[in-house]
């Protein structure tokens, strides 16, 4: 062994020597996502960790997502490898694989969500249901393309639910091989809600409809707010058992908040816990997007299908809103329907902005929050339905 040998071996094992073009492209994709997250502030809380995880996973030779022990994927197993030989990010990814991370994020989301506007106007739930239309449109379109299995099509459809944890929960169970593109598409389009929705909303409504000022919501009592999460858990789970983990954690978080007796748990659920999980989920979900897997025509298709899902979801919500406008003889502003896609709270803000454009004294935010949070429940139900049909 001499100096030159060691040096040569070191260089031969360096990343420069083994970088593939796919990895190079994915690094560029990760830079673009970092740009969108940091400079354009597109859902940075998730897009930044996802993009960085993507960068790490596509730097060659790191083994940071390797699975020689076959913990997640038995086909990668190398004889003699122990669990601790797996890459750090692969091990942390266990929290995604087991659905623990999406559930804990929903726990925090529940502790941050106010279902008051929904309880004050229960018809909000209908708008939250109509906006799930996009999920099934995208499901059918995915199947029609002929390049996805039914399981994959279902996972792609859930992008239209506009809820990150629900999309990741479903994809990790039905199509783990597509988790990267699905998660990236879901969060990207959620960030793009203010660009995607307004044209559709305006195309489907008249000026007069958009000008409607809605009547003040009634006050909701504390007792109603406490009973609500319990009833939702029972009813949703009885009907679609596969949704228990997601809806259950969402509602437990909400019960923490509304009960008022466990403030320290509520506080931790919506701060330390959700932040820790967000970091770990984001980085490892991003790290699933390895070049060789990501750079396929399928990914491009998912990007297109995701947009289609969001568009039809918006349309579904607005159209039912329009129907309610007629049924109530003009008391409902159809613009609140688009908030039913969830993407809390961006979609509700879009309703507010569009309403104010039509009528500067219009204040739709609170009215749109009802369909907005109903959409979270709606897409969880749709996800549970797919899991019931296609789950193993």
């Amino acid at each position: 062994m001499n100096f030159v040998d060691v040096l040569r071996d070191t260089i031969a094992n360096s990343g420069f020597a083994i970088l593939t073009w796919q990895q190079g492209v994915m690094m560029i994709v990760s830079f673009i996502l970092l740009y969108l997250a940091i400079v354009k502030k597109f859902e940075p809380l998730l897009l930044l960790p996802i993009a960085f995880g993507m960068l790490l996973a596509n730097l060659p030779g790191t083994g940071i997502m390797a699975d020689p022990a076959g913990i997640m994927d038995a086909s990668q197993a190398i004889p003699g490898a122990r669990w601790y030989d797996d890459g750090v990010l692969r091990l942390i990814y266990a929290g995604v694989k087991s659905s623990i991370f999406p559930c804990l994020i929903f726990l925090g989301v529940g502790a941050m969500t106010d279902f008051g506007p929904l309880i004050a106007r229960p018809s909000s739930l209908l708008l939250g249901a109509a906006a799930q239309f996009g999920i099934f449109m995208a499901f059918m379109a995915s199947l029609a393309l002929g390049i996805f299995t039914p399981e994959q099509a279902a996972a792609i459809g859930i992008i239209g639910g506009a809820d990150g944890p629900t999309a990741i929960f479903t994809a990790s169970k039905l199509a783990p091989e597509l988790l990267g593109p699905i998660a990236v598409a879901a969060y990207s389009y959620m960030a793009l809600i203010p660009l995607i929705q307004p044209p559709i909303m305006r195309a489907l409504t008249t000026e007069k409809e958009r000008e409607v000022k809605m009547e003040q919501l009634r006050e909701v009592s504390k007792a109603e707010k406490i009973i609500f999460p319990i009833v939702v858990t029972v009813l949703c789970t009885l009907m679609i058992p596969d949704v228990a983990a997601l809806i259950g954690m969402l509602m437990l978080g909400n019960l923490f908040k509304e009960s008022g007796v466990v403030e320290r748990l509520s506080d931790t659920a919506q701060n330390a816990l959700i932040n820790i999980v967000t970091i770990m989920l984001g980085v490892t979900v991003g790290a699933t997007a390895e070049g060789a897997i990501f750079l396929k025509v399928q990914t491009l298709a998912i990007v297109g299908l995701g947009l289609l899902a969001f568009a039809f979801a918006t349309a579904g919500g607005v159209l039912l809103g329009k129907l309610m406008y007629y049924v109530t003889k003009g008391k409902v502003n159809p613009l609140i329907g688009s908030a039913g896609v969830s993407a809390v709270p961006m979609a509700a803000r879009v309703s507010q902005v569009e309403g104010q454009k039509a009528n500067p004294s219009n204040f739709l935010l609170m009215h749109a929050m009802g369909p907005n949070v109903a959409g979270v429940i709606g897409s969880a139900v749709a996800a549970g339905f797919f899991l019931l049909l296609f789950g193993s």
Partner: protein
Amino acid sequence: MLAGKDLSMIDALTISLTGILMVFTELVLLAFAVVIISKVVGAFSKGKNSSKTTDNTTNSKSDAVPLPETQSRGEIDLIDVSQEDAAVIMAIVSNKSGIPLNRLVFNSIKLLEEE
């Protein structure tokens, strides 16, 4: 139930229709449940004077539209403090004290400069 099976486009349509039906059924069910809850709670609380069980009763009279809990009331003088910094400070005070923002009044927030 259908794991691993192939689907025709008719099947896909069937599934989609069932799916959207399920979603609507579930959420309509929830809507009815909410109505029932509200009725029951209302009946109970009427029994023991309704004002006890409602939130924010203090401001229900004075305001036409109750402020959302995340909005503070009144005007505020910002002296050398950006809107964002002020919002942060207000949110902290609200969060830490447990008093919703709509019940707090900030008269002024001032960034101290060198004398």
